[in-house]
């Protein structure tokens, strides 16, 4: 269970938001909405533990995330604005590197399956440099399929994805929720999930 208690975020001299609280139980999905600059990304980064809230705290199964630290991060998969891909490596090399950087090396087969889930397996002969924006995004998101994490935090996952890829992602999120996972995401495009989505809107 992920809970946010009375979060407040200040950027520079501006207060982006205050008093943000919610609870997410297994199988629930939260869609964070709001105009540009309203603090969506900042909220997600606070939920990950990358940024510190000015006030309040984030709890995972009732333990503050700063206290359980690595235990929390072992449950977490985060996809930010950037894809965290190396231009000089091929997609599967990237996935394998990402897995081993987490101390959880994966097999080539598992990496290929993860790429298959987003339909980018056939691109594996090329270095990432040669891929289009959308293809890169898909490779980046394949990490979700490779590492089994219970909490997904996705910042604009649909950015530069085409309709088919968006559908693939929605399917993946649905399967994740059915397994008892939790997802928090932001999106400007509508995302069609089978599961019920809770919406948190910034004004």
């Amino acid at each position, binding site marked *: 269970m992920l809970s946010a208690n009375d979060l407040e975020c200040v*950027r*520079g*001299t501006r207060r982006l938001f205050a008093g943000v609280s919610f609870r997410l139980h297994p199988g629930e999905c939260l869609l964070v909405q709001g105009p540009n600059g309203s603090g969506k990304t900042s909220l997600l980064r606070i939920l990950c533990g990358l940024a*510190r809230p000015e006030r309040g705290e984030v709890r995972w199964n009732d333990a503050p995330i700063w206290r359980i630290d690595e235990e929390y991060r072992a449950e977490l998969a985060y996809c930010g604005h950037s894809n965290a891909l190396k231009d000089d490596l091929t997609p599967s090399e990237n996935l394998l590197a990402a897995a081993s950087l987490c101390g959880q090396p994966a097999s080539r087969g598992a990496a290929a399956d993860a790429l298959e889930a987003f339909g980018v397996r056939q691109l594996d002969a090329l270095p990432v440099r040669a891929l289009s924006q959308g293809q890169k995004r898909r490779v980046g998101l394949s990490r979700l399929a490779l590492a089994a994490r219970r909490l997904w935090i996705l910042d604009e996952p649909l950015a530069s994805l085409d309709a088919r890829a968006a559908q693939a992602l929605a399917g993946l999120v649905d399967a994740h929720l059915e397994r008892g996972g939790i997802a928090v995401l932001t999106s400007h495009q509508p995302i069609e999930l089978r599961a019920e989505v809770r919406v948190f809107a910034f004004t």
Partner: protein
Amino acid sequence: MSSGLIHWFRYASPPSFYPLAGRMTPWFAWLAAVSGAVGLWIAFFVAPTDAQQGESYRIIFVHVPASWMSMFLYLVMAGWSGLGLALNTRLSSMMAHAIAPTGAMFAFLSLWTGALWGRPTWGTYWVWDARLTSELVLFFLYLGYMALRAAIDDPRRGDRAAAVLALVGVINVPIIYFSVQWWNTLHQGASVSLTRAPSMAAAMLAGMLIMAFAFWMYSIAVSLVRVRAIILEREAHTEWAYQLKEAT
């Protein structure tokens, strides 16, 4: 105990520290002025002429206190930085930030007066003496701290990055000092030590200590004024600042 803690934390918030610092500043400023006057009087009119160095030794009355302050202020700065990192209090980081320029100034003064003392004593403005060299490195450490602080726009990030640097520096200062000393004995450079005045008369020692006290009080007063300016800069957008009498 707990009420005392709450009391303390109340002053740890910049808006409530601002008036307190304002009330404290004149006291330290007056202490600095009076002890400075007494120190200078001793330095020029009470302390006798040195048998070996003649009148040139009188530089000691600014040189040694300036060196002491430059080292002491770095420690204090690192202390506030550590406190700021550990407790995440904004005021501690602001204090560290406010001390740095004064520390750098004293390090510079120590180098400047050291050079002016070196000329009549050793016949040259600069020798690679262990103390002078480590003072120079300390000066660079201050400059690095201030440069890093100035290069980061986000004040909170700047606070924390500079604090890490100050802590790294404070671990390094003894190592640097030891290594420079080691290097100096190895190369048989200048063997005259600046601070060991040949025959330290009681008046000399008293003058030096009083001057050091004056510099210390001055540092506190100036840091308080600077921390007030920093608070104003950081809180410029708050209602608290709008209600200040000074700003009307």
